[in-house]
């Protein structure tokens, strides 16, 4: 009973819920600001995502007459819930180990595509032809970027499994043990064997977050935001919350997989260190790339994902296997 209560608290306050949302929105604001600065603009204030949220809550909600109402209304709730649960599984090294009795890599792997699926559901329920185009693009892109992700997770799990068992075959899927193992035998991000996997993860990030050059499903200049086209007001706000939570989840997962080191025993410093590492990951893989690139066509993006990051991740997987 108290375990359940504990888990719910973790989902609502820390590291899921309130904390994840605060970090996610902070990152989103900073992302826009840094992008503007890179293009020599002033950029919006750091609080912009919160202001957008306030605005969307005061707007009118319009539902298309031809839309499938229940699916249209449920889709954002779906995406939000999936990410709120997933955020509780993210370990904050030195502060919180994640919901260890149930949280492992495979649970996260299954929870991660939920926002994309919610987008697909919403897009197809909106009865808009642009939603349908967005649906098919989202689906293709998802199929393409999930393959390297699975390989990265496998490579990490196998390396740590081998490390723990001292050279035997075996994989370790518990995030808690992966983080603990790295804390005393060195971060995987600094291990030469895992560098291709780290690169693949950095390439995976813009795809899963749907930012340029992989913002193909929501391309506002071609298919006027695709699945999000018919959403407005509080429903759109819920999609944005899910997206902010997802930013926290994928960056936090990256830190847990590759750089879970801590710098001291005191937890506030560790917390700050974790946020800084997430920030570094975001600036390198999302903001810099986004402000310097245009947009791929869907076939180019698909081909790119099934070749480059998949090959990199496979490289790590094979290296782990033979060593």
């Amino acid at each position, binding site marked *: 009973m108290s375990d359940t209560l504990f888990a719910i608290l973790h989902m609502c306050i820390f590291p899921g819920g309130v904390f994840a949302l605060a970090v996610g929105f902070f990152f989103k604001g900073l992302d826009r600001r840094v992008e503007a600065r890179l293009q020599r603009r002033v950029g919006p204030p750091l609080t912009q995502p919160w*202001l957008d949220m*306030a*605005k969307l809550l005061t707007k*009118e909600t319009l539902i298309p007459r031809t839309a499938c109402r229940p699916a249209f209304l449920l889709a954002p709730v779906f995406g939000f819930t999936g990410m709120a649960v997933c955020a509780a599984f993210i370990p904050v090294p030195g502060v919180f180990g994640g919901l260890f009795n149930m949280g492992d890599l495979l649970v996260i792997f299954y929870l991660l595509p939920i926002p994309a699926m919610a987008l697909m559901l919403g897009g197809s329920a909106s009865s808009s032809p642009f939603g349908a185009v967005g649906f098919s693009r989202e689906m293709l892109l998802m199929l393409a970027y999930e393959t390297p992700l699975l390989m990265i997770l496998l490579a990490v799990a196998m390396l740590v499994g081998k490390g723990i068992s001292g050279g035997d075959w075996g994989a370790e899927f518990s995030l808690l043990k992966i983080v603990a193992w790295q804390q005393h035998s060195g971060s995987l991000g600094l291990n030469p064997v895992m560098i291709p996997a780290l690169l693949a993860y950095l390439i995976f990030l813009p795809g899963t977050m749907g930012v340029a050059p992989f913002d193909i499903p929501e391309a*506002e*200049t071609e298919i006027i935001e695709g699945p999000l086209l*018919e959403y407005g007001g509080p429903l759109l706000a819920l999609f944005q919350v899910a997206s902010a939570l997802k930013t926290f989840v994928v960056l936090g997962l990256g830190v847990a997989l590759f750089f879970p080191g801590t710098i001291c025993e005191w937890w506030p410093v560790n917390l700050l260190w974790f946020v800084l590492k997430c920030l570094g990951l975001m600036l390198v893989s999302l903001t810099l790339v986004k402000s310097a690139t245009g947009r791929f066509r869907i076939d180019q993006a698909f081909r790119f994902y099934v070749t480059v990051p998949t090959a990199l991740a496979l490289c790590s997987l094979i290296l782990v296997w033979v060593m």
Partner: protein
Amino acid sequence: MALDNMLKKLSVRSPWLFRINAGSCNGCDVELATTACIPRYDVERLGCKYCGSPRHADIVLITGPLTTRVRDRVLRVWHEIPEPKVTVAVGICPISGGVFREGYSIEGPLDRYLPVDVNVPGCPPRPQAILEGVVLARSIWLKKLGLEE
């Protein structure tokens, strides 16, 4: 009620812009793109964002003299924008027809069909004028919400 008012007050700091081309010669559209993109006039510092979907829009920027062919579509898209919305006529064309005035295919001026809140005259208007129009639209939006600045 206090929370509601606070949300409303904050909401005008996130105006999302939507552009409708009502048969414009593209001069004003280029000017709008300039206003958004180039560093000196960066419109994003006001919290603005150009959005692709009329459902996400708060401030509508309409350019062009409203030609016969495009009239019904403009009206239809305009009605798809959720309340509260503010309409800004950019350039002289939607205001009076400009050089196309009394042309055989011109249905304008725009305020014959839509309530226009801000006029930004010019052919094309300067970026500063467009920015001022957006700022004015913000205060009109606040008034529409029943609040004074």
